[in-house]
């Protein structure tokens, strides 16, 4: 089996422009256009979050689709399952809005849609080749790669840094 791609975050590249959050909300709207999405009810939500921490670090956060996903095992209605690509999905029809998943997610990346009373999260944009947040990121802070390829790239870049610093 080929290894599925995942969304990785390079925090050092994020400038906090929030393009990812807008693209995500639009991709999960009915109209799939910015102008349409703005007027939709219920309001389309972003499943990616950009948090700030001291002194001025921007940290995009999105569902990790954890291997031993706590949300999936905690769910009391069987609404959360993992698909064949490793993506952990919330079945909106089965979700009863008890928020147990919110209580156990250590990343805080499961949202509560108050109008529909349903939990929502990153679904890695099943209809797109590349998730909307990754396509929209202007600085390359979000990448969509297999774990092997991403860690390979990180290793190479770290070695380059090392060589440069040693001069």
């Amino acid at each position, binding site marked *: 089996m080929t290894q599925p791609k995942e969304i990785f975050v390079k925090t050092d590249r994020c400038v906090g422009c929030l393009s990812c959050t807008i693209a995500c909300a639009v991709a999960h709207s009915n109209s799939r256009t910015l102008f349409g999405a703005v007027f939709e009810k219920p309001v389309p939500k972003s499943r990616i979050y950009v948090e700030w921490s001291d002194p001025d670090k921007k940290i995009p956060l999105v569902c990790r689709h954890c291997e031993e996903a*706590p949300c*999936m095992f*905690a769910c009391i209605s069987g609404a959360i399952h993992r698909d064949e690509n490793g993506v952990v999905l919330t079945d909106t029809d089965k979700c*009863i809005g008890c*928020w147990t998943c919110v*209580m156990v997610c250590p990343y805080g990346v499961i949202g509560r849609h108050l109008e529909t009373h349903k939990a929502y999260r990153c679904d890695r944009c099943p209809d797109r080749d590349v998730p909307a947040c990754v396509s929209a990121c202007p600085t390359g802070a979000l990448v969509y790669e297999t774990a092997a390829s991403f860690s390979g790239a990180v290793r190479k870049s770290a070695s380059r840094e090392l060589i440069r610093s040693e001069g």
Partner: protein
Amino acid sequence: MEESTRYLIAGGGAAGMAAAHAIREIDQEGTITLLTDEADQPYFRPLIPFLVSGEKKDSDMFMAGSGPYKSGNVSVRTGSLITWFDPEQKTVYLENGGRIGYEKILFATGSRPYIPPDIEGLDADGVFALRTMADARSMAKRAEQTSHAVMLGGGVLNLKAAFALLKKGLKVTLIVYSPEVLSQLMEPEDAFLIRKALDQAGLKIINGRSAEIVLSGKNGVDAVGLDNGRELSCGMVCIGKGVSPNVHFLEGSGVIVDGGVAADMYTACNIKDAYTAGDVAVAYDPVSGDRMVTALWTNAVEMGRCAGKNMAGVKTKYSGTFGILNATQVADEPFVSMGTVHTKEGDFEVQRSSTAGSYRKMVFNAGGDRLIGAVLVGDITNAGLYRYVIREKKPVDRIKQNIIDHTLHYGHFV
């Protein structure tokens, strides 16, 4: 010839099913037999109030094929009540006459409603303690024939049952002996927003009273008599006074039972090749270190998975359970309660904050350097992060103000 199985799972609830599927992830060959005394296939027990209200139907309830319960080849026997267990012969005996040998066994027989012995007349028709799908079906049926239900006990399950009946158009009165509802999960002043929402939703609540007698006639329940002499006429009664573990079949077997089946750090019992998980097991609290039974779905799944791994030969330490770990929504008011939340007695640093629509209470240890509990009402965003901080006993120095202000996010750990 006597029947035998490699893995015998006694109990078809959350812990049993989680264990069976965890075993299957590791051992694709070994036979797994799961026994449940109920007539139904294993189901999502927390959903039964929706069966009462009619919002869900039978087919929405079952675990097999849903969520993480997708691996197959688990032989489920319904209607199989275990009456006796012989550790020498490694055999269980069933009420229906059958007996099954095993190599590894899991006691995950769960719990049943605690029925207070001091209330008279509880054997009348129309008295329920909501626990099983069968209970839910008969409650739904009874609700068609009556206009007023009296609920005894103010816990989460009884509140959910109350709302299911409200949805069906009944008048519902809740009798709570404690000063406020949800007294196991929070202190009275923590519950004021929830109480307000319950009142607004039309639930009638009587505090500080208990039922003494259930009066009945030829059509079953007529009325409930309270300890102040007051009589409430009603057509059904629902008891929600907690649960007690199903351990009767272990009597004389040598398995240590002390308020439940005693588990070690690896979910194992005191006898060989026997494990336990879920409501029936006595685990321990990672915060206080106390041994405890917790009747909670989330804990049962976690412990069941751990037991399953151990049974399949992957030694796995159980990280322990929070005695209090509950998220839910009653009357459109979401809340989360976890860890140490009763702070009236003992030395704690308690930080409260309250707005018109939300309330939170963050409980730190006396030294103020560790978070040990949290109650969030209204705004429960990122609740999982606080659970993580409590459970991992993270030092809070750098993030304490964020915890108090409820602005903690994962970025603080990066």
